[in-house]
């Protein structure tokens, strides 16, 4: 594009079936690591584009977003009929850099424990710094972006929109940044395990999974009978001591609209539980007809 060319402000075509940001107002990311991701972008852009990008993300203009071998590929609906194609890539770490990082992570079990439990450890950046690299993009060249739109600026608002949506993915999955840096969760964990054991890992043998099922032809002798007595089989139908134990175990679901999954489904769980209890202890219909 020639410098100084002036575009008249365009209006985006309203997208259908796009991905709307979970956050509809206020800050975009909930966790500190996702905020770091957003900040990396915000340093590079003017506030106007950022604000339009946020609005795009919230309206659902991002039509798709995928992880590819080269990084992130997204499609964003702009003012033209054909959606714009976007790429976001972070420079991967070298194998040597990763080795150093993983050495650092192996020193404290807390890194693995929190990552596996879905949390980015606070001290993780120190582990990366010790290896003289940074986990999050810190410089301009750490973050490569590209958009098929006619805007001269890069990052443009379309990139910003995709970046924000990506931020919410970070919230849910701390390993995303690792993947973008070139290592999957499995790779990182395997390396960590090796260091814990202090030895090379023996080749894993795969257990063959098969389902035990006796062919029907071999069951003819007691075809109608129970395969084993059910005498000791005990069922206790009771309401839970603590309501919705599984929902509580899962924790907050950030993608669920307000007031959150526990409030939304509370009534339903109670109703279902009470109905189950009622049916379980309901008497037989007295009017059952008999032949006589």
């Amino acid at each position, binding site marked *: 594009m020639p410098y100084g060319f002036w575009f008249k402000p365009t209006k985006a075509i309203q997208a259908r079936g796009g991905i709307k940001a979970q956050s509809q107002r206020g800050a975009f990311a909930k966790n500190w690591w996702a905020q770091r991701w957003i900040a990396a972008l915000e340093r590079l852009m003017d506030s106007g584009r950022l604000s339009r990008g946020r609005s795009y993300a919230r309206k659902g203009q991002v039509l798709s977003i995928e992880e590819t071998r080269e990084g992130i590929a997204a499609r964003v609906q702009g003012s033209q009929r054909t959606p714009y194609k976007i790429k976001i890539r972070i420079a991967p770490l070298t194998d040597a850099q990763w080795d150093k990082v993983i050495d650092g992570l192996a020193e404290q079990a807390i890194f693995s424990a929190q990552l596996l439990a879905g*949390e980015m450890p606070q001290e993780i950046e120190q582990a990366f710094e010790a290896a003289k690299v940074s986990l999050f993009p810190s410089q301009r060249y750490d973050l490569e972006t590209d958009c098929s739109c006619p805007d001269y600026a890069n990052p443009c608002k379309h990139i910003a929109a995709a970046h924000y949506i990506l931020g919410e993915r970070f919230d849910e999955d701390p390993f995303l940044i690792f993947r973008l840096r070139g290592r999957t969760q499995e790779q990182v964990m395997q390396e960590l395990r090796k260091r814990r054991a202090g030895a090379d890992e023996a080749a894993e043998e795969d257990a063959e999974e098969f389902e035990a099922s006796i062919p029907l032809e071999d069951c003819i002798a007691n075809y*109608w009978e129970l395969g084993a007595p059910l005498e000791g089989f005990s069922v206790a139908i009771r309401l839970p001591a603590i309501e919705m*134990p599984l929902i509580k175990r899962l924790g907050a679901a950030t993608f669920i609209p307000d007031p959150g999954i526990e409030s939304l489904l509370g009534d339903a769980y109670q109703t279902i539980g009470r109905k189950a*209890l009622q049916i379980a202890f309901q008497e037989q219909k007295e009017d059952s007809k008999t*032949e006589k």
Partner: protein
Amino acid sequence: MYVLHAHYQPENPGGILFWAETSDVPAPKQRPKQAAKKSKSRLHPFSADTATLKNIFNLDGASKTATLRLPAVHGVPLPSPQLVQNWELDTQKPKLDPFLIKGIWLNAVDSLPVLLTHTATTDPSLSPAPDLRYWSMASALALETLAAHKLIPALVPVDDGKTYHARWLPVLDAAKDAARLAQLETAMPAVCRAAVTKADLPQSPHMVLHNFLNAFCDLLARSWGKNAAPRFYLGADTPAARWVEALFREDPTVKASPAQLQSLAASYKAWMRNLHVAGDAAFRIAFRLQAPALQKEPWQLHYLIQAKDDPSLLIPADEVWKKTKGALTHLGHRFEQPQEKLLTGLGYAARLFPPITGSLKGKRPTELAVDTSGAYTFLRETAPLLEGAGFGVLVPPWWNKRGARLGVKVKIKSRQEAGAPGKMTMENLVNYQWKLSLGETELTEKEFKTLAKLKSPLVQIRGQWVSLDAEQIEAAIKFWEEGQTQGEMSLLEAMKLGLGGETREEAGGLPVDEVVTDGWLGEWMEQLRQSDRMEQLDQPIGLLGQLRPYQQYGYSWLAFLRKWGLGACLADDMGLGKTIQTISLLLREKEKLGKLPAPVLLIAPTSVVTNWEREIGRFAPSLQIFIHRGADRLRGHELRRAVKGKDIMLTSYPVARLDAESLQSINWLAVILDEAQNIKNPAARQTQVIRKFNAEFRIALTGTPVENRLSELWSIMHFLNPGYLGGRTQFRANFSLPIERYHDEAALKQLKQLTTPFILRRVKTDPRVITDLPEKVETKIYCNLTEEQATLYEAVVQDAMKRIEEEDGIQRRGLVLSMLMQLKQICNHPVQYLHQTRKNKKGDSTPLADLTGRSGKLERLGELLEEVLAAGDRALIFTQFAEMGEMLMNYLPGAFHAATQFLHGGTPTKARDRMVKRFQEEERAPSIFILSLKAGGTGLNLTRANHVFHFDRWWNPAVEDQATDRAFRIGQKRNVQVHKFVTTGTLEEMIDDMIESKKGLAQAVIGSGENWITEMSTDELRRVVTLRRS
């Protein structure tokens, strides 16, 4: 009869096809010659039509079909073993053939009540098949899951992720669930996976069961939760909201674009991360908190991995860190990536209990040291949260014991001296006193205040750790202040408390630690709990006969409960002598007091009244009996006068019901019910009037396993000890339904604790009993004639004797024999004498209704067989009449839901051998074997039977003994009971008495069957055959 089946059909949406086999159709015809057409499925030849299903089982739904592969021979499916039928089918080498089944289809919601209630049907002609019981249990598990909120909203990809469905997904990951699911998988009857599917894929029990659980939980939750579905405000129309909405719609499809679905699925997956944070189906992460030896030292929290099916298998964290392989294995279970799982669990637990974070600074964390207040927080707050998330938590053993926290101790003291216990009733009052306690240690107010001052939640007292939290201290202070520390309660309440019936009892917010009873009350409670400690009584002096040791025990037990005015249920197996134990008690009572203060009312089935009369006469002739029966029986004042001075009044249930008013006006010493199952229906008038009879004590006798029939148990207990088990509705909700439908172990245990002191049941196989019992026990079964039988009998005697008087020689002999024959037939059954059987040309047997209630002997046989069958025993029935044998063969299956086979002179050798082999060897063989005395009296080996009935008599002990020996011979490992029927007042009783009184002589005289009777003089003969009506 009908056997009701349930077939689970996974087709969208899942539901149950109910269908039934029936034996009320002509025998299906096997066609050996005709080659089976392979591919085509035939209509099942003896399945009930849908109209019948609707009528009989009260099913209301659409008619549908299924094709099932069933074992079949020559094109006819083999009936399931529950179906009682007399079809002579070739059962050799069955193959699986497809059959079309017609039935009634019900969706998940509508099929539940059918599954849950039809398993407990009491009508023996409507039998639930194992597959029905199986799906009933599986649906009970689904109900447990729903009631306990153990399900999650799930987002399930279908069609390779092109579409997503919103589903309610059961999560069965409690410690015992893996074992329960494995048990259900092995228990699945083969027929449950016999459906012919389009893809023709093999269906494993695992697949079928999980498909069922998933489908039922989803369908039920969807339907029941519909009215409580969340409403979203306008503008909140996100894919997530649509997913939530789709959880409550019939169509589970989540309506969103592929990119939205993909994004939703990613968010959903992240949310699910913590679902299995504690482990998997086989293993879980566990924490063990260990108390220090001394108060000042730190507590240790150890990290471990625990096997779910074997909680004692614990792998410490340092072992896990040493593992270089990617999986732990134990007894065929694999735990993949144990290190990562342990780390994940620790990461999650650190959020609930922040001190854990500190321990993770190292490379290979294994444990954490915490101080006392940290330990307390972990025990009180963290442990329940961790357990809720599926972690194993091993707390010090004292933590959950009652002694580890403040509680109360109840001291119960009797007010009376033990001296006059005869008038003891459940309403008597006893004093109680509450004491504050720590376990077994009582606390004084001063001691308590010293402890409270420590202000530490965990304190060590005499080497024992004890928790003292603010709430409990508060409750304890209130306890002292309110001063409600003593009062009085009824003996009934004290007994319930003492027997542990009310474990959830609390006093002012504090748990009841212990119930202490002292003096005679303590002894009494101890004896109630452990009847071994009871005093063994000598048998009454006047008893003619010797009590066996277990009978002496039973009689002492009856006397013990009687002493305290408690009702007792003697539920010994048939043949163990409930009668003699009861008679001994009454005799002892009379011997102790010189004379009984009031008569005893003994109610028995009509058919057994005479039996009681004979037995009392035999064992305790000093007891004065009054029999209340007959059309001209006394009522009101006259009856009261008549029973005065008598020891026992015998009557039957129907008479007791009819004369309720007269009987209620008498103060009885005791009311004793024989065959107490006669009051099993609490709502019946008979039960209600009998309950109102006044008595100082009550006894119920029954030979059926009363502890397994809960409504019967309640009704009998309510008669014996009114109010003890609570009201009927309350009892059903607390015990019957949880135990009968769901095998609820906690409820069963509590009920057992409550009832054990009042029920004594010994079975013949009890080691203590078996050594006391002779190998062969012979009993006379006395029964009555019905009015119809008596009329026929007298007519025959009158007519025949007249003709006998006029004849002599061969003619006379012929007439006598013919009269004997006719009289014996009448004693058996009027229908046999009248030859009303086999009238129907179609070969249909005489309808049940025409046989029921017309013969005292048949009624009595039925009562005895009921007990034989309830105990799972097998019986031989000998008769000399083929016609009677056939009647029994046709009557018994319908009346008692028991298969029979009949061997007689006309049975071909091959069939005969098959019957014997079947009876001896097959698990599912008919348990009743009817034999004609001539054809089956010799040669056969039928040791699987331990009951022998001689329905009519040959008057030749040698012949009868020989027949008895079919069962009582080498190979017989149990005691054999021989029941010989004797119709009272008839020639049967007269001849039986004659043989008994001159046994030695008789052998020679009567050796040749009944001929000796023909030698009697006419007067003698008249004396023998004339009916003595009592």
